[in-house]
């Protein structure tokens, strides 16, 4: 297990380097001179001001040097200075990180509890009306565009029924959270429902389930201890991998519901051509995605003792 852990961590480094390199190359060949664009509001188009800005941001150095410097700063947790806000990128991101994490966590909780619950009961009552409706719902949930779902919920629940606030973060209260978390979670809930249903169906006819029944265990015990727990292993893996994708989807949901998180910051910085902030947001999301995948991989070995890592 220890060797596996060490090897997995060593494999993680080239991936991380590759990812940072791709992001760096992509964003630093962006057309439109950042200094020219950003220098404008303060100093007109005075070439001296622009030259000073280029020098300040280190834009005059060749790309490989800039990449090495970027990596060096990254290790220290320094993401550079925003072209537009004249503040540290790490500060700007820090302010907004909590909002995104809160949204993603709630979306995930919702997706896991709803998805696993639906999938489990559908499989136990295979072929019932509940099963059929739940699975039609799952197919629908997987095909529905989340931004449209957000708008429709906003209209139905917020405008027509007037039960919940239409958008905004509020003071971080529950009422403002429900619609965004639901919108974010639906696609993943649908996926997990299908996954866990088929995982349960795979387990239901195993010998140990029959053994448990024939030795006279209560049906409830059989269902939870023998079926549910064994079916859960692949589902947890999928759920973990989904969490990373969910972080990416916050870009859409935060934009729809006007939340000030990392996702909406990312979109804003594209329009502002604020490369350091854009780079920072993308890095945060991608690195989180990578770390989560790594953790899932490690957790898998812990959850399923049958898996041997040599």
């Amino acid at each position, binding site marked *: 297990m220890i060797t596996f852990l060490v090897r997995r961590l060593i494999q993680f480094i080239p991936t991380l380097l590759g990812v940072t390199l791709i992001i760096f190359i992509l964003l630093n060949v962006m057309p439109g001179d950042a200094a020219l664009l950003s220098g404008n509001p303060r100093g007109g188009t005075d070439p001296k001001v622009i030259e000073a800005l280029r020098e300040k941001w280190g834009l005059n150095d060749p790309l490989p040097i800039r990449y090495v410097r970027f990596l060096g700063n990254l290790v220290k947790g320094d993401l550079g200075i925003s072209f537009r806000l004249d503040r540290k990128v790490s500060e700007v991101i820090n302010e907004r990180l909590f909002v995104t994490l809160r949204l993603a966590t709630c979306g995930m909780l919702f997706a896991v509890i709803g998805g696993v619950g639906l999938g489990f009961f559908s499989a136990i009552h295979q072929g019932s009306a509940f099963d059929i409706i739940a699975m039609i719902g799952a197919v629908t949930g997987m095909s529905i*565009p989340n931004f*449209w779902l957000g708008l*429709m919920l906003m209209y139905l629940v917020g*405008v027509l029924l007037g039960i919940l606030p239409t958008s905004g973060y509020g003071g971080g209260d529950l009422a403002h959270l429900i619609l965004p978390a639901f919108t974010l979670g639906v696609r993943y809930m649908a996926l997990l429902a299908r996954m866990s249903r088929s995982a349960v169906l795979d387990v239901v006819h195993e010998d140990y389930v029959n053994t448990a029944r024939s030795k006279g265990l209560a049906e409830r015990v059989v269902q939870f201890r023998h079926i549910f727990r064994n079916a859960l292993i692949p589902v947890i893996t999928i759920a973990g991998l989904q969490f990373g994708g969910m972080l*990416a989807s916050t870009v859409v949901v935060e934009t729809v519901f006007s939340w000030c998180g990392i996702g909406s910051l990312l979109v804003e910085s594209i329009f502002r051509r604020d490369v350091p902030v854009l780079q920072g947001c993308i890095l945060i999301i*991608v690195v989180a995605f990578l770390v989560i995948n790594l953790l899932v991989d490690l957790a898998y070995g812990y959850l399923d003792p049958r898996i041997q890592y040599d």
Partner: protein
Amino acid sequence: MTMWKFIRKNNAIVIGGTVVSLIVIVAIFAPFIAPYSVKMSDLKYALTPPGAQFLLGADQYGRDILSRLIYGSRLSLMVGLFAQMINTLIGVTLGLFSGYYGGKIDDTIMGLTNIVLSMPILILSLAIMAILGPGIINLLIALGAVGWTYTCRVTRAETLSIREKDYIDAARALGCSTFRILRKHVLPNILGPILVIATLGVADIILMAATLSFLGVGAQPGTPEWGAMLSRGRDYLYYAPWISIFPGVALFITILGLNTLGDGLRDFLDPYRKTLK
């Protein structure tokens, strides 16, 4: 197998195929079906609710939503098909080389694939669109450049198993060139899974293209792209919800149709690897 039996056994293909065919027909014959020209815009009709004159209402510039939806199907299908063609071409080529040659080539290609795969597609395509700027062609390039990883991995895995088959040895003994072996002996045998991935991939790309347009970095504003039509809808949600409702319905039906068709194809072409039930 009689036709009736085929339909009963593969209703997903039939239902999904019908929906997709209808959308394709609408896209092809858009100028004949659309009640108004796509360029028609008259502020005097701005925000007209759905009714006899405008079946699905008019938007904030007085443009007929139905006509724009009909023309929009062309854009969505075009982006979906072409971007997926680029994806499939890249994925299959890299996957074939990776699987057939093995060794250093395999390591390099798989390393690249894993790096691209370790970034969420939405984030990667957002970054590319940020560089290229909005526009349908750029959307095609961005989505064509990021979605090939899965195809590549599947192609590689299938190629790996086919490489060991006797008929490959036979072809090699006969003196076939590598290119000929890949084209005539490997590729035809892995078409099934590639077709399924491609079909499901079109749905993903259409959704991704609409998402990017909704965020404002995809199709240029003013283009009758479904996602772009939705992007300003929120500002009018209270007064004119139809601006937001119908483009989403069109998008939803298209994606649902393609997903259903893809699932059905998977069951049909690969009965041993069942779809999630």
